[in-house]
């Protein structure tokens, strides 16, 4: 959705300024680089990642050109390394001219294999990514270095970003930014280092050099892509546009598109026949929900290059739209229904942390519709969500909120109802007479994000995926589980009641939950809550904690104590862990038990009040998460009296 910026800056480019990138080249006689033992153990390591971004204004035409040069040298040390780097894809989106591709491999023995340019292939209109030039690296073997250098001339856009961190380490990263006297702004993210102004070959440049950038880390409860080191830049022809001007421009653009003044008759007709009858009096929440249900059951969001998918008349007739166009459809209906709304421009929090202080339209690809009177959101292109809190992929990110007067403000997209997502589980557990089987009768309620996710998952998946999900809904990790009853309630995705729970009533049998030990039986009661994730500590935590959403679990597990048996080992059921900051409990696990009328009653409360925790709190968070995993191992012993 790169349509939110449209100040007419400068038009067609042509080039006559002196250009730095034309003088840049690789070593004529390359040698293999020295690496440490640790570096040799990596599957691959970038010895150099260099990006040159050069803007320049033609002295004759006054037009701006942009050149981007990419130069990489990568050592590949094993098959995984080779496979990661021996296929090169150069995206051609916005590229006017490809100014030469060079690639070579320097083998362990120094032998050089150059890319045969005839082996470069073109692929066109790939998914939603546009065209590519692709080639396979020739001569790559273990221990060799793959070197690629190319320059593209792109259509002028004042904005760009460059990612500097990857899933393999980088020994040296250089970014050279040349504005050739044009007004520009640069910002670095997720590093303390900044660009420095210097001269290279008599060109005044901004240069950023980073050494030893580690590979990104795979961590649970983390948003690794959003924490990559990257650079965002802006370069304007002659105008010095402040961030405020840029945001204002976006607001104007969006306002014009998403706050219609006239409502086509077809919208009114559709409302009368499908959403709200004349004189029907229902709550605003219900009206908004009906609208959301109606659009999601009748409109298809399409990814292709048909420009008509953004025209309201076409959208209403064909009931197909782009992800941008569907917001127009919502806007027309909301306006007609007299529901106040604001448009929210934001980003997926796992990919990008929205920065109000630096305008970067490339990153702002997500749109929500905020309903201020309800303090709820519509997620236009999410078929799983209906009027609700913001979806989990956005929750916690900042957003640009635009109202009908084209006023705007920035705000963190928070959850308004902290109790929104809950699981309540009531289990009654009995044993077969011969102590061979455990029988579990369970009633569950899932609200909030869980409710939406369960409905969508069960409605939209099939086969093994659906079977796996059913397994999760009846307690995963029980080896020989036999589900004898499985009843779901409130499964329809189109709902109009606020936070209606998704219900699951099930009965399962398992023999594996009982272990035989001589005359006694060890009941693995902890396993009935399903497999719990475990956070390890072998590597130091890199990223702050991001959970999907705040949540709470409440369990009541009632275990029948068969006549003639006594219970031992109950102490393993008692686990209390909490993370408390400024006398506020941010998350906790609390499990306890009592014995009443020949029944063992276990109660558990587990909650996480927010979805993000700073890295300093990781240890405390880990203890709570792992407490659930500890409980999962709890067992009690039935002894014959």
């Amino acid at each position: 959705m790169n349509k939110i910026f449209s100040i007419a800056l400068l038009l067609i480019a042509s080039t006559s300024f002196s250009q730095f990138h034309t003088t840049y080249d690789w070593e004529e006689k390359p040698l293999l680089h020295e690496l440490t033992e640790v570096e040799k153990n990596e599957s691959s390591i970038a010895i150099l990642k260099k990006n040159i971004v050069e803007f320049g204004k033609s002295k004759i035409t006054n037009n701006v050109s942009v050149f981007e040069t990419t130069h990489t040298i990568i050592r590949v040390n094993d098959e995984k390394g080779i496979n990661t780097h021996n296929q090169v894809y150069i995206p051609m989106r916005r590229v006017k001219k490809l100014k030469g591709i060079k690639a070579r491999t320097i083998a362990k023995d120094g032998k050089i294999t150059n890319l045969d340019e005839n082996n470069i292939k073109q692929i066109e209109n790939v998914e939603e990514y546009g065209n590519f030039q692709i080639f396979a690296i020739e001569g790559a073997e273990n221990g060799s270095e793959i070197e690629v250098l190319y320059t593209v001339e792109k259509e002028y856009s004042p904005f760009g970003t460059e990612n500097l961190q990857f899933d393999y380490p980088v020994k040296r990263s250089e970014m050279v930014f040349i504005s050739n006297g044009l007004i520009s702004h640069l910002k670095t993210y997720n590093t303390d280092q900044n660009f420095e102004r210097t001269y290279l070959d008599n060109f005044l440049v901004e240069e950023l050099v980073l050494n030893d950038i580690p590979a990104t880390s795979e961590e649970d409860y983390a948003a690794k892509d959003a924490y990559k080191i990257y650079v965002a830049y802006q370069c304007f022809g002659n105008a010095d546009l402040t961030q405020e001007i840029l945001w204002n421009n976006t607001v104007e653009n969006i306002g014009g598109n998403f706050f219609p003044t006239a409502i086509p008759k077809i919208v009114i007709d559709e409302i009368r026949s499908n959403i709200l009858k004349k004189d029907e009096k229902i709550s605003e929440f219900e009206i908004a929900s009906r609208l959301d249900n109606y659009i999601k059951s009748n409109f298809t969001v399409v990814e292709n290059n048909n420009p008509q998918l953004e025209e309201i008349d076409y959208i209403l007739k064909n009931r197909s739209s782009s992800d941008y166009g569907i917001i127009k459809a919502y806007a027309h209906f909301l306006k007609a229904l007299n529901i106040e709304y604001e448009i929210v421009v934001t980003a997926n929090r796992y990919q990008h942390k929205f920065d109000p202080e630096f305008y970067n339209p490339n990153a702002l690809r997500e749109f929500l519709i905020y309903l201020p009177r309800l303090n709820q959101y519509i997620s236009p292109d999410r078929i799983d969500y209906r009027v609700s809190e913001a979806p989990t992929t956005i929750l916690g990110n900042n957003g640009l909120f635009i109202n009908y007067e084209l006023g705007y403000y920035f705000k963190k997209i928070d959850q308004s109802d902290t109790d929104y997502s809950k699981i309540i589980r009531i289990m009654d557990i009995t044993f077969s007479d011969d102590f061979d089987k455990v029988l579990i009768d369970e009633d569950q309620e899932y609200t909030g994000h869980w409710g939406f996710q369960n409905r969508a998952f069960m409605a939209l998946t099939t086969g093994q995926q659906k079977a796996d999900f059913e397994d999760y809904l009846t307690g995963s990790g029980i080896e020989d589980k036999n589900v004898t009853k499985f009843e779901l309630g409130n499964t329809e995705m189109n709902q109009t009641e606020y936070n209606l729970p998704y219900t699951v009533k099930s009965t399962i049998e398992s023999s594996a939950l009982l272990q035989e030990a001589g005359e006694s039986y060890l009941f693995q009661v902890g396993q009935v809550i399903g497999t719990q994730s475990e956070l390890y500590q072998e590597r130091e935590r890199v990223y702050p904690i991001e959970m999907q959403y705040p949540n709470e679990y409440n369990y009541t597990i009632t275990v029948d104590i068969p006549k003639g048996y006594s219970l031992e080992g109950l102490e393993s059921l008692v686990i209390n862990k909490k993370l408390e900051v400024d006398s506020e409990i941010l998350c906790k696990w609390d499990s306890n038990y009592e014995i009443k009328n020949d029944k063992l009653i276990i109660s558990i409360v587990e909650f996480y009040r927010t979805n993000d925790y700073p890295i300093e709190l990781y240890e405390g968070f880990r203890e709570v998460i792992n407490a659930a995993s500890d409980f999962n191992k709890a067992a009690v012993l039935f002894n014959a009296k």
Partner: protein
Amino acid sequence: MKKILLLLLFINQITHAQQVIDFDSEDFYYLNRSQYLKISMDADKFNIVNSVSEKGTYNTGNKLFFANEFIHFDSFTEIKDIEAFTEIPSSNSKIKVDHFETKDEFGNGIFFSDQQSINFVFPAVSKDAITTLKYKENIKDPHFLGSFRFGTYVPTKESIYTVEVPNNVELGYKTFNLENVDITFEKKENKNTTVYTWKAHNIGEFRKQENSLSVLKYIPHVIVHIKNYEIENVKKPVLKDVKDLYSWYTTLIDQIKDSDNSEIFSIATELTKNLNTESEKAKAIFNWVQSNITYVAFEDGLGGFVPRDASSVCSKKYGDCKDMANLLYEMLNHVGIEAYHTWIGTRDRPYSYYEVPTPIVDNHMITAAIINGETVFLDATDSYVPYGMPSAFTQSKEALIGITPDDFKIIKVPIQPKEKNISLVKTTIKLEDNVIKASGKRTLTGYEMVDFVREATYKKDEKSDEEYLNTKFQIGNNKTTYTNIEFGELSTLNDIYTITYDLEINNYAKSIGSKVYLNLNLEKPLSTDVLLVENQPFGKKINHKFIKKYETTFIIPDGYKISSIPENISNELEEYGFSFKFIQEGSSLIVAKEIYVNTLAIENEQYDGYNQFIKSLIKAYKKSIILEKI
């Protein structure tokens, strides 16, 4: 008056039991899917047009994403005359698709292919909408008539396949999985043409499933091929039998570019110069290609069938299966080892060359070498498979071995016995302060080794070693901590791979009162493997036969005795089995466990027997020992 020649040969109701499908409970299904394949001849040139027609309907608005439609094609086909529209019964309206986009296909492990798709979206779909798609496929090469599947990813009410051939063309066909389908077949001979028609009703949904046998073993379908045609009383073969297929393949092999092979020959000579036996030489060359040529897949028209010349593959250091097969072929023959180009289908193509002599049978190429009179199958696309073993995914499949331009052999790739694929896990366990402390050594051979080494090479760096092993081996519970992990050399060149580690497991032994309860089955392979036809309707695929052996020594802690030891137990069947033995020797308890699987497939009707076996295994896993203070 001209007599209309219309001879009804036979109409045959092929089926018996019919599947009951509740179309009303489907979000989306096909009312009709049909294809009309018309073959005609213009002199000795084929003109082959396949007219496709599909009509689907929506019962709900849940799965509107089915409105996204794709027509896939490659350079052997041309798509024409597309017509696509949505009908909305309530408003009696019809809206045409007005935007089609052609895209290059990309991904699926293929670097570059000539696959393309025409993409579009049916407009205005919602509950009760009916979508119609019609187009024509021009098939440019008579070797690629393809197949028709009566079922697809959602249920189909009616599907019709018609093939019309001129009477001078002989059609071959083979049907698959029609046993339980409501289907009729009709062959009509007209004056100039013969028309074959299959008409099926109420076909269920068929989707590819992971860990299942090929869906092609279940989906009702028919494969057709042109056997031969007659021109001026001369019969000309196309694909009458596997001989025709092979002779076509040899014309493709003949198209390999001539090149100067001196460099690869000198590499082959150098690799083998100090080696005496043929098998040592073949192993050296095979290992070299495995570790020096990277697999990069190309599917580019007939180029997808013609190997690139060996010397360019060697200098580029990459190639696809046929490129590697041809390189091996050249290198082996150069050092005097008899080697042949070999075509083969992977296990997901469940066809025989004898039944359908068409290129649909195979999707892969390897090299067959004759070593001491034995045929050895060499597949260097698997960088980890040990010399002497075929790639696991070709086991049991027919290999078409090209001996000379006129001579070929078909040999089944042998299924590797379980004794070749062993995981041997030796563990010594101590109990200290209720914490399990163990040291483990795993020795892997055959495909057990291949699978581990490949996966570890690609995945172990994503997580810490400890987390990786925790998820991989699942020893004890997910709280197991690992120390002193020695991955050793992640390589299969030595035909045996060993990894060692020490473990600590908290929360595992249960100390209750004066007793300690301990389950010595720290690993429980297959314990979650109960199969249900509802979840896994297309059988269970097993990649290779295997044995998992566990030799566990438990050191009885000082001051304790074992008061209860489980009895020895076994359940050893032909296709799978286990045995657990417990022996107390002085202050140690030794547990010897063996679990094996001796088949590559569990078919649906075998689920019950398999599940009984799994349940008996779970019962065996349930038994703990009890320690008591002396």
